[in-house]
């Protein structure tokens, strides 16, 4: 079933109180795809991600995870669904009072009955995936920003989720580290069979890894294009999407 839909949004409106951030968002994320959420600064990309991981209830519309209506169920039901999610936050969001290893072990301690030595082995494995084994006993304050991000990725993988959400994974990373992270994401997707939703405006990385996506517009507060970044770059006629994909200045100058 290559075209199985894992996540779907139907006419979702996101707002903070009376302030509407985005409306009429409809999208389908296929299993095993890397789905990019694109758009200029302040268009509501991160807000959309927040809503998809259950931190912000949409003011209208429906959100399905697999066959389940995400917001219709109880809080406990949402927590269960959230265990299918792994989230990499923008700056890692590691818990600062714990070592990197403890950060990754915590979800395993909380939600599985595994013995400490088994947990340790899995923690080492997850850190091994991201090449951070040497930092297992260090505190987040003792490692660099890029390492924090990779450790955050290892933590997102802790419970072997099948849906991964990345918020600006390559922001603030040098091109080499960023390219390596892209390869890592591709390897993890292929290896784990995970579905990935990624918020980014790092064009090279989007062209490299994403195979589907949505483009949000800050002015009209609606999505204005659907498709993979590559096809949007080559085929989309919307001037704003074109400008974004080709790094041109917006002609109307009011983005």
């Amino acid at each position: 079933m290559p075209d199985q839909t894992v996540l779907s949004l139907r006419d979702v409106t996101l707002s903070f109180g009376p302030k509407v951030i985005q409306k009429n968002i409809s999208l389908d994320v296929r299993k095993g795809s890397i789905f990019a959420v694109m758009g200029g600064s302040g268009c509501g990309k991160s807000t959309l991600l927040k809503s998809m991981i259950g931190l912000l209830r949409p003011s209208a519309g429906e959100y399905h995870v697999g066959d389940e209506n995400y917001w219709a169920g109880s809080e406990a039901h949402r927590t269960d669904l959230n265990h299918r999610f792994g989230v990499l936050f923008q700056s890692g969001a590691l818990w600062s009072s714990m070592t990197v290893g403890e950060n990754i072990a915590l979800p395993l301690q909380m939600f599985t009955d595994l013995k400490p030595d088994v947990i340790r082995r899995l923690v080492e494995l997850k850190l091994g995936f991201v090449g951070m084994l040497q930092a297992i006993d260090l505190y987040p304050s003792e490692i660099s920003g890029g390492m924090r991000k990779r450790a955050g990725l290892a933590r997102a993988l802790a419970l072997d989720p099948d849906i991964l959400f990345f918020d600006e994974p390559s922001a603030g990373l040098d091109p080499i580290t960023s390219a390596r992270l892209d390869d890592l994401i591709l390897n993890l997707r292929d290896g784990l069979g995970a579905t990935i939703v990624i918020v980014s405006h790092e064009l090279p990385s989007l062209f490299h890894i994403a195979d589907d996506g949505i483009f949000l517009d800050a002015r009209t507060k609606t999505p204005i294009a659907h498709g993979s970044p590559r096809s949007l770059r080559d085929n989309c006629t919307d001037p704003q999407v074109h400008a974004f994909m080709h790094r041109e200045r917006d002609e109307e100058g009011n983005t």
Partner: protein
Amino acid sequence: MTDQIETEPQAAQPADRTPRWYLQGEQTAPVMVLSGIWKARAGNIPVFPKDGLKKAPGAHLSFQTSDLQVWDTGLVAFLWDLKRVAHDAGVSLDMRTLPGPMRQLLELLPEVPDEPVHHKTARTSFLETVGNHAVASMTEVGVVSELGALTAKGAVLTLLGRSRMRMVDLLANTADAGPYALLIVGIVNFLIGAILAFVGAVELQKFAAGIYVASLVGIAMVREMAAVMTAIIMAGRTGGAYAARISTMQGNEEIDALNVFGIPTSTYLILPAVLSLIITMPFLYLYGCLIGMLGGFVVAISMLDITAAGYFHQTITAFHIGQFIFGFTKSLVFGAFIGLTSCRIGLKAGRSAADVGIAATRAVVVGIVGVIAIDAIFAVIADVLGI
């Protein structure tokens, strides 16, 4: 059969769900046969023994995964064990015989993992620890004094109009340390006055000296209680807030930004904080005195047979102006002390969320203990001077 690798007893039936592995084939070309369900969450992933492969440089290990039912990262953990052992034994792995996803994950994992970096916990002797603490606390006294001097210098420069402290900051800090603190300072001092009167009334009544409750409450509030209680409240309320705010700024690199611009933290951050406490503390002290006496008055009037006028007269004759000045001076010193130490603790804090909590706690503890210690020093000075 010397060049044949021993195989584990083979009992893998198709319905068998437990993860199983065994090696078969010749030593130069062993085959790892995997079967069953390999789920990390099940907690039954076997460990590949460190001596599982005999030294056989040049040997080539291939995989047979046709009986494998379901797998996830648990299997990868096992294969990683194998990869490391194989590396040590000089055996190469035929990755092509692994399914694609498994191969991709396994290729991410290093054959020779980097050694974890450990914290060096050098053991120090007791004497060394004491010495280190002594030096550290002396340094701290020096740093706080220097900070105080810089702040005072900033204040002088501001008065001369040659340095800029933003009046907005001073007003905001003063409002927070003054008017907004009135309620809690009032409640605490009222209760302290009432408690003093209550304790005094019980004893003094026995000697028919009930009227001296007024003197007791008056002197106690003016000399000690109003200043100390107000300072303790402000240490907990405002000192903790200063430390938390400045350490959060530290975490957000806001302090670094100030330093780069050359905006001195002493004038921009510390001066308004310290000044606002120095401005508000004396007023809060006077207010505390009055409210405390009111508390005493309420208890005395309701418990004892004295008139309001009598209580009032006894109160104003009980202490002279010197005692007022004494309490007033103390409240100024307490204000400066709380402001300086809490800012210093905030500036010294680390950059994580936990460090903010530590800084706030430390500011409150240092504030309260320091206020009481300074009060004791004042008591000795007063005794010597005969105030």
